[in-house]
């Protein structure tokens, strides 16, 4: 599989441990991360050892199409450990849609994904990451973002299908004038979910926002720990909101602000509660059933409409 000239998109598709599709238009280098590790010595700085699986995306020139990656499990009891590396070069704007999923509900799969994202000076990346797993799957997703001066990151992560255990970690290092905006939405049902975000505002005029939306139902437990630490004169904000839909479910939201610079401003807001009766009754007065109304409120709360549209587009492509 090679980089293809005149291709109108860049796609990576891995099923179980096998790469099924890998093509990219000019300007993007797309390889398996193990191949990249062997060919490009300079990336050893970011990859501690030769990966077993996963992708390497290097956006070298401006491209007009989003890059899409999909790592799926289709057979029972697969244990995936993709190690991914994404690099966006100086001043380049890129967009990535990334899906990790199980194609059936009862595959008892395990997915441990680790990704490092390097945004060079003044580059920009919009990354939308969707997870869709089965109720018996165990998933760990860990991402490190390194933003150089003036880089901009917009990252959204959504996992709206219930699984057994979910742990999502992100660590973001921000140099001066860089900004990172995180939106995370998790719908947990009979699930144990842990969400850890940490932002380090190391440079002056850096900024970071963490926006978490969590819905916990049917004996689910969600623990979120969001940290913003400033050594540079930056601005950081954590916004956590949770809906608790049933007795026996738990949401434990822990925001942490660590300020070591008198010119930095760090804030947080958080609320965990139930669905508003006013909203529910309003929608019911329009002829929607209680379930339809509840779904619409949760959908809106999690921003699922966007996910659904994007997911349909991706599935089609």
């Amino acid at each position, binding site marked *: 599989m090679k980089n293809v000239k005149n291709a109108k998109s860049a796609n990576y598709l891995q099923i179980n441990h096998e790469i099924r599709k890998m093509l990219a238009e000019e300007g993007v280098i797309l390889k398996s991360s193990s191949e990249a590790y062997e060919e490009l010595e300079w990336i050893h700085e970011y990859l501690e050892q030769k990966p077993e699986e996963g992708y390497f995306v290097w956006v070298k020139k401006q491209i007009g199409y989003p890059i899409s990656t999909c790592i799926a499990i289709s057979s029972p009891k697969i244990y995936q450990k993709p190690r991914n590396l994404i690099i966006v070069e100086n001043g380049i704007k890129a967009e990535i849609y990334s899906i990790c999923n199980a194609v059936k509900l009862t595959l008892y799969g395990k997915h441990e994904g680790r990704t490092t994202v390097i945004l060079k000076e003044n580059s920009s990346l919009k990354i939308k990451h969707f997870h869709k797993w089965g109720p018996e799957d165990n998933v760990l997703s860990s991402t490190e973002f390194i933003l150089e001066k003036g880089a901009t990151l917009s990252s959204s992560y959504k996992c709206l299908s219930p699984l057994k255990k979910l742990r999502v970690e992100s660590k973001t290092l921000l140099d001066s004038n860089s900004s990172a905006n995180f939106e995370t939405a998790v719908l947990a049902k009979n699930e144990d979910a842990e969400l850890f975000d940490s932002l380090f505002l190391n440079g002056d005029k850096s900024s970071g926002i963490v926006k978490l939306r969590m819905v916990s139902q049917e004996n689910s437990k969600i623990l979120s720990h969001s940290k913003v630490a400033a050594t540079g004169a930056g601005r950081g904000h954590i916004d956590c909101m949770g809906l608790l839909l049933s007795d026996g479910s738990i949401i434990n939201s822990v925001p942490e602000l660590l300020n070591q610079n008198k010119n930095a401003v760090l804030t947080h807001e958080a609320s965990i509660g139930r669905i508003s009766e006013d909203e529910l009754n309003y929608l019911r*007065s*329009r*002829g929607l059933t209680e379930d339809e109304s509840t779904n619409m409120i949760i959908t809106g*709360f999690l*921003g699922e*409409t966007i996910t659904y549209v994007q997911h349909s587009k991706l599935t089609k492509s």
Partner: protein
Amino acid sequence: MFKTKNLSVKVNGEDVLKNVSLKIGEGEVHALLGPNASGKSTLAYAIMGLPEYRVTRGGILFKGNDITHLPIEERAKLGIALAFQNPPSVKGAKLSLLLKRISKQQSALNLKDFPLDYSLLEREVNVGFSGGERKLSEIMQIISMKPTFVILDEIDAGLDIINLDKLMRIIQDKLIDNGVSLLAITHRGDILQFLEPDVAHVMLHGEIVCSSKDWRKPWKTILRFGYEKCEECKERELSSD
């Protein structure tokens, strides 16, 4: 068509409506006048079936069915619709999506009929809507429901005369001209001249104290002397049965 009989309603343990009897025929337009906190909106919510508005006496009949204890959505499906005075925001849900959900399959709306900035459809329901946008959104939702009985709760509140005129034309065209029965709640009475109601009722302290087939009569009294005069009025025309 629609009837409340000796309807008494409690809200948070407090008696708000007392023996309210109201009868609205098919295609009739009724106005319900009254000062702030007289119980007008409570009547609207009780008719719609909002849970905290508890009927303690009497009942509500619609098209011959006793709907006093029906869930909200069942009343809506039977053809009752309420334009809320202060509708809540539904964050994340776009107005276009709500309209689609209401209409189920075939939309009753022709968007060209509305003085609409189309970007409103892509905004979250009632989030940051201006007063005029909120009223327009309410009317669009209600028309989507294809109702046969509509309650307009202070639809004229906060609207300038031009927007009120536009909205009234839509109400005339899409609801009244299609034989929909209306109960228009207002305390300022701006909409009376537009609607020319068949009957005007006055509500004070949770009771209907006057019902007149000539809306100008009570309205002139109210304009001249205020609602207080209705309490001592000797010409009350209680016509409800």
